[in-house]
């Protein structure tokens, strides 16, 4: 026993006070995109939706570094403006499911009994449908648009968070420090929010970072199917979809927004990785 504690002690000490490189790089990438999103007006060289009919499908050049699309719109400007929509989609599309899932999972895991059964059956119902089909069904009812995307995301996406949090809470519920808190006469609310939840959140925060990527891709998918962001608004997924017809002749229309998606996804994945390491989720 003694040697094991000693070893983990060394590991613990190593982690404290040092940021993993993955986290730094990831944060830099995402911060770069965030800057683009915030300052889109000042950075983008052209208006993203104004058609320049004289200059359709122009390949990348000095005046249009990413080229132009079939309506003569500057792809670079559209990618920059798209950052705003896609970041927002990724973040809001994760925050609502995260919050709902956390509350449901925490209550379910901590209280147990019939509440647990009730919530978990709800989870089963949601999981029983294919993810995208359920999303499309809800969005079809609510009508196209970003708002209905967020609502659908919240209604469908919470299940993974609820499951994750619940499993963590179930483990933590039997940990020594929670028993200690009970023996000290703390209230249930205090044990839940001060002691269990902060420790249970680690895994789902890490998961949420990689989830951002999935949500952006889902957003792009529903936009592609005509239910999400409506043209002519610049959004990476829509751009990729629109450029598909010209992929052999004008590769730049799909390639650059696609590259942007990959870069942002890469940034968030690195954050997820680095957070996992920093918060001690994996070695």
């Amino acid at each position, binding site marked *: 026993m003694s040697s094991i*504690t000693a070893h983990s002690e060394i590991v613990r*000490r190593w982690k404290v006070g040092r940021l993993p490189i993955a986290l730094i790089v990831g944060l830099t990438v995402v911060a770069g995109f965030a800057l683009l999103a915030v300052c889109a007006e000042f950075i983008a060289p052209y208006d993203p939706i104004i058609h320049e009919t004289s200059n359709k499908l122009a390949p990348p050049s000095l005046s249009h570094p990413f080229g132009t699309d079939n309506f003569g719109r500057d792809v670079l400007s559209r990618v920059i403006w798209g950052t705003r929509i896609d970041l927002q989609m990724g973040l809001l599309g994760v925050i609502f499911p995260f919050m709902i899932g956390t509350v449901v999972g925490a209550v379910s895991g901590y209280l147990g009994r019939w509440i647990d059964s009730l919530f978990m059956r709800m989870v089963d119902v949601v999981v029983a449908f294919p993810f995208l089909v359920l999303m499309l069904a809800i969005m079809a009812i609510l009508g196209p648009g970003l708002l209905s995307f967020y609502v659908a995301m919240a209604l469908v996406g919470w299940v993974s968070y609820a499951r994750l949090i619940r499993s963590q809470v179930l483990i933590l519920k039997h940990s020594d420090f929670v*028993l200690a808190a009970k*023996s000290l006469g703390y209230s249930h609310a*205090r044990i839940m929010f001060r002691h269990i939840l902060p420790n249970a959140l680690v895994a789902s925060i890490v998961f949420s970072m990689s989830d951002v990527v999935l949500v952006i891709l889902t957003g792009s998918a529903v936009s592609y199917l005509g239910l999400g962001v409506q043209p002519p608004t610049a959004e990476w997924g829509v751009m990729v979809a629109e450029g598909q017809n010209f992929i052999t002749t004008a590769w730049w229309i799909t390639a650059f927004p696609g590259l942007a998606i990959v870069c942002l996804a890469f940034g968030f994945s690195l954050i997820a990785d680095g957070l996992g390491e920093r918060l001690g989720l994996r070695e």
Partner: protein
Amino acid sequence: MPPCQAKQPVSEPLLTVRDLVVRFPVSGFPWPGRKGRVVRAVDGVSLTLERGESLGLVGESGCGKTTLARAILQLGEIASGSIHFEGREITTDDAKSVVGLRRQTAMIFQDPYGALNPRMTVGETIAEVLKVHKKVPQAKIDNRVIELLKLVGLSNEYRSRKPATLSGGQCQRVGIARALAIEPKLIIADECVAALDVSIQAQIINLLNDLRRRMRLAVIFIAHDLAVVRHMCDRVAVVYLGRIVEEGPTTEVFVHPKHPYTQALVQAIPEIDPDRSLPRALLAGEPPSPLRIPKGCSFHQRCPFVMDQCQRGEPPVLRNSDGRRVACHLYGEVQQ
């Protein structure tokens, strides 16, 4: 505590446990007609504890000593039996009595890291107790935290550290400071030095002994290591398969163990004497599973002095003689 408690006579023991039984259901496939099996983890334990007294609970792993301790603090469900703290019966039906119990008892754990919330600093952990129980006015919390840390031999700089940056011994000190913050009358220490190195173990034992004397704390000290118990406790109770098989003043029990199990335990203390080699006559076998407790005396399968009546006879009754009790057929006749 309600004022009526003040009228209690001084002779009232701090804690009285009578015929405590704790059962756990055993999981298994629920065949129709099959009754759910239960494990009697604690099987009719009675004990008393005076103010400022320290009692050692000794036994092998799985014998129910931790379950017993948790049941006393109302941290687990009790099947039957009663617990009186300061003369007042503690039951889960009476939420007030449990709150009262929590205000006057604390627990110290075996795993020094596991018992502290890894996301809270040492200072926050201790301050939380003071805040929740309103032990000191808000403005004085900081001072009290520093005071408590000093009491357990930690300097002020540890206040902002998190458990992961501390050593095992330091974490255990924080655990003790947190227990003291509640100003308890009773502390239950569950194997609190078992995970520590020998040199650190000695530090913690000395610290606990010192605090106990200064604050007149009653301590229930759970351990498998008899040598540690000898240093900590006025009285010792030996637990085997959920029952107390022997109880008495520590030195008495150690010098003249009566129950064959206690004798084996005392013999197994690894004293550091180069001339003492490993004993030849050892206790055979291992404790049986709590699911299959043998009939008669639960120890008879391993007992070197087993007699007919041990296998047949219902569990022998605890007998009192000079402040000691032994649950063994061997001493049935000696009873006055």
